[in-house]
Each structure stands twice: as C-alpha cells, then as structure tokens.
C-alpha cells in the first residue's frame, strides 16, 4: 500500500495500430494540483480519459486510493471489470469536459442533483440542498432553475464543474475546460478552479492556459508523443525548461 492518491504505472493505449500512450508513469498525492500540457495529439486528454475509464487501455495499471481502476487479474488474465463496478469507480473521480456536456433537459440544479439522487441515493431534499450549496459556490445560485440553453458558455461550464464536484470525488479531472469558451468567459471558470485548488482539492488539469497552469499548479507534466517529456514544479518548467521539446513547445504557446 502506498499513500498516493493516484498511481499510473506503464500506461499503454492504442487506437487500432496507433499507439497514443507509450508507457506513462505518474503518481499524485492528496491535494496536489497537476497541469498536463503538451501539443495536440500528445496524449494528454487520452491519459485523463483513461483515469475514469472513458477510454479503455491495453496495458499498465491505474489506481486511485489503492483501488485498481477498470481491470483486474483473474487467474493471470487481465479482464475488464464488471460494468457496475466500473460505474462505481468512476464516481471516485469527477470530470469536467471541454464541451460542458450539461444535460439540456434538466435545470442547473437538476443537473447537479441527478448523480446525488441516482448514484449516492440521497433524498431529493438532501440532493437539492447540496446542489444549491455548490451552485452558490460557483456563483450561480440565482440561475438554479435555468436550463443549459438559457446560460452562457461560462455559466454552463461552472454548472458542469458544480455537477462533478458535488459528487464529492477524491480527484477532479479537467479536460480543456476553457477551450470552447469565448475569451471574456475564460476567467470566471478559472476563478472557480482556483478556488477549488485553495480548498485543497486534488486536481488534474489538461489545459492550454499556460499562465493559469503556472499560477495554480503544484506540478506540471509535459506530454510529448505519448510519453511524459518532462515534469517538475511550474517555475522550473516554464522558466528553465530542460528539454528542447518543451522549450520549443513553450515558444509556440501563449505563455509570456
């Protein structure tokens, strides 16, 4: 047993014959905020999606709090866990998506409460109270009865974050949550994430917001061609990159 919240060992992932993750190792302690940066196609989003089994992976292990995710060894054969167990394990993590993916036929409060009622088996009242607490936290309590179609992109993304975090996950995954937003709406979402970081929430962020990654992360991982190219604290990574790849990448990114 280790005290690591997240442990990724030799993670391999293929789409057909194309190998997108070629052996990724990564550990994360409780309360860490790790940003994953890298050019598109480097495997950063795929890695994030493997952690909650939105993607299957062919080799290696991922453990959260000592629990192996998605697969188990039965008589020496690696087997996918039962769908029900995978669903339960997915609740260990919360995820926010680039496209928000709010349920359009439910109000903001309904979106947040759904998992609480159906997965956590709370009563309606209990779930609603928690939903309101988190909507308040992301500054949208007054919009709780609005439908996603009536909210701006930034507001939708904040509701989506509230929906994920209300489930009380051990680890939050953010997949390029500001990439689909108009520039003037980016900040309100980043402020919410920053607040969560200050609360000590463990978070893994795939992001193109280099300035934000620099400010909020305790550690930065640079993904390059399916492997971890370089990792370290944000100061070293952004100001004194060791590898040529990272240097090149930072030149083309908006960090300056």
């Amino acid at each position, binding site marked *: 047993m280790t005290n690591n919240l997240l442990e990724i060992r030799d993670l391999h992932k293929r789409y057909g014959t194309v190998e997108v993750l070629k052996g990724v190792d990564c550990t994360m302690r409780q309360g860490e905020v790790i940003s994953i940066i890298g050019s598109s196609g480097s495997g950063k989003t795929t890695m994030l999606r493997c952690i909650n089994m939105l993607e299957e992976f062919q080799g290696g292990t991922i453990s959260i709090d000592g629990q192996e995710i998605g697969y188990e060894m039965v008589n020496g054969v690696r087997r996918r866990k039962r769908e029900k167990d995978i669903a339960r394990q997915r*609740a260990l993590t919360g*995820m926010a998506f680039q496209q928000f993916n709010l349920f359009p036929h439910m109000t903001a409060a309904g979106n947040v409460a759904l*998992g609480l009622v159906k997965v956590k088996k709370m009563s309606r009242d209990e779930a609603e109270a928690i939903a309101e607490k988190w909507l308040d936290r992301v500054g949208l309590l007054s919009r709780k009865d609005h439908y996603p179609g009536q909210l701006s992109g930034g507001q939708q993304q904040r509701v989506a974050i509230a929906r994920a975090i209300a489930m009380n996950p051990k680890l939050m995954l953010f997949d390029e949550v500001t990439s689909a937003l108009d520039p003037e709406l980016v900040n309100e979402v980043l402020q919410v994430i920053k607040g969560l970081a200050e609360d000590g929430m463990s978070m893994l962020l795939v992001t193109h917001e280099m300035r934000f990654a620099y400010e909020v992360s305790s550690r930065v991982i640079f993904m390059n061609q399916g492997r971890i190219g370089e990792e370290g604290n944000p100061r070293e990574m952004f100001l004194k990159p060791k590898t040529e790849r990272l240097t090149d990448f930072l030149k083309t990114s908006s960090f300056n």
Partner: protein
Amino acid sequence: MDFAFLDQLWLARLPLIKGLGVSISISFLSIAVGTVLGIFVGLALTYGYTPMQWLVRGYTDFIRGTPVLVLVLASYYVLSTVGVELGPFQAGILALAVFCSSHVGELVRGALQSIPKGQTEAAKAIGLTFSQTFAYVLGPQALRQALPAWVNTAAEMVKASTLLSIIGVGELLLRTQELISRTFMSLEFYFFAGFLYFVINYSIERFGRYVERKTAVPS
C-alpha cells in the same frame, strides 16, 4: 345533398359506430404494441452486440421492405398453415404491430444516435450505470427528438388499419363498403368515412403538438 343520405346514415349508425370503434381499437393496439416492441428494436440496433444488431437489422429491413398488405395476408393465412391459429382481428393487429415496430425502431435508433456522445460520457463520469444513463439522460432526450416522426407513424398506422378489411375485420372501411353495396351511395359514404379518418388523424396530430409543447426545453 338530399335527405336520403342522412336517412341511410341514421339507419346505419350502429354498424358505423361499431366500425369506427374497431378501427380505433386496431390503431391503438397496434401503435401501443408496435411502439413498445420498437423501443427494444431501436435499443438493439443502437447498443446490441454485433450479431444481435445484424439479426435485428435483418428484421427491420425485411419488414420495412414488405408491403403492409402482404404482412396482413401473411399473418392471417400463412401463420395458420404452421399451426398458429389467429382470428382476423388478432392476425391483423400482429401484422400492424410488427410493421409499426420496425418503423419505431428506426426512429428510436436515429434519435439515440443524434444525441452527442458527450451526454453519455458526462453521465458515466458521475457514476451512472448504463440503464440509469438511458432512463434519465438519453431516453428523455430521444423521446423529444422522436416525437414528431412518431406522430407521423401513428397516423400511418390508422391509415393501414383499413387493410384489415381485406381479411374480414369489421372496421370502418368494411362497414362502409357493406353499407354502399346496400344503398349504392358510394360517393357520400366514402366521403363520410374519409372524414372520420381525418378526424382521428387530426386529433393524433394535435395531441402530438400538445405533448411537444409540454415537453419542450426552454432555451
């Protein structure tokens, strides 16, 4: 229009009302059974394992490629040769329900596939199981999506119910024809029957609009 028609209409009111009732029963039953079956067909087409998808795909393609009249005749005459004895009413309902199920199946498949993948992923990410995802996230969205086309199919089923007159089910068309062969007022009574069919279908359409309005998502 002279009064002879109204006299005849009054005289024939009971068989006509009965016929109308039978037509409505046929339509209602075949739509209900066909829709329930069709939802399973749509689910199998969308989420079934590959062999099952092939099987169900074969079923829908075969049924959709067959004229409804042929299905009705087959259900009544062919099934009895293999030992399944159905009365004309039951055989007719079976044929129409099967026909309806293949159409509803396609509607459901189309509606489910039009929902962005992110919806399923978001549902999974908060820990919903597949059946929960379907019940609370995909189903309600697919329902709204499929509703207008479903109303169309329902209206088609009402029209197709007339085909059961061929195998001797005493529905509205057969009763009308019997009446015409007695009174020779073909124009009047065909028009009258047509009017009744229009009323049924118009009501279905209004009902569909009403449900659409009631379930619309504000944006």
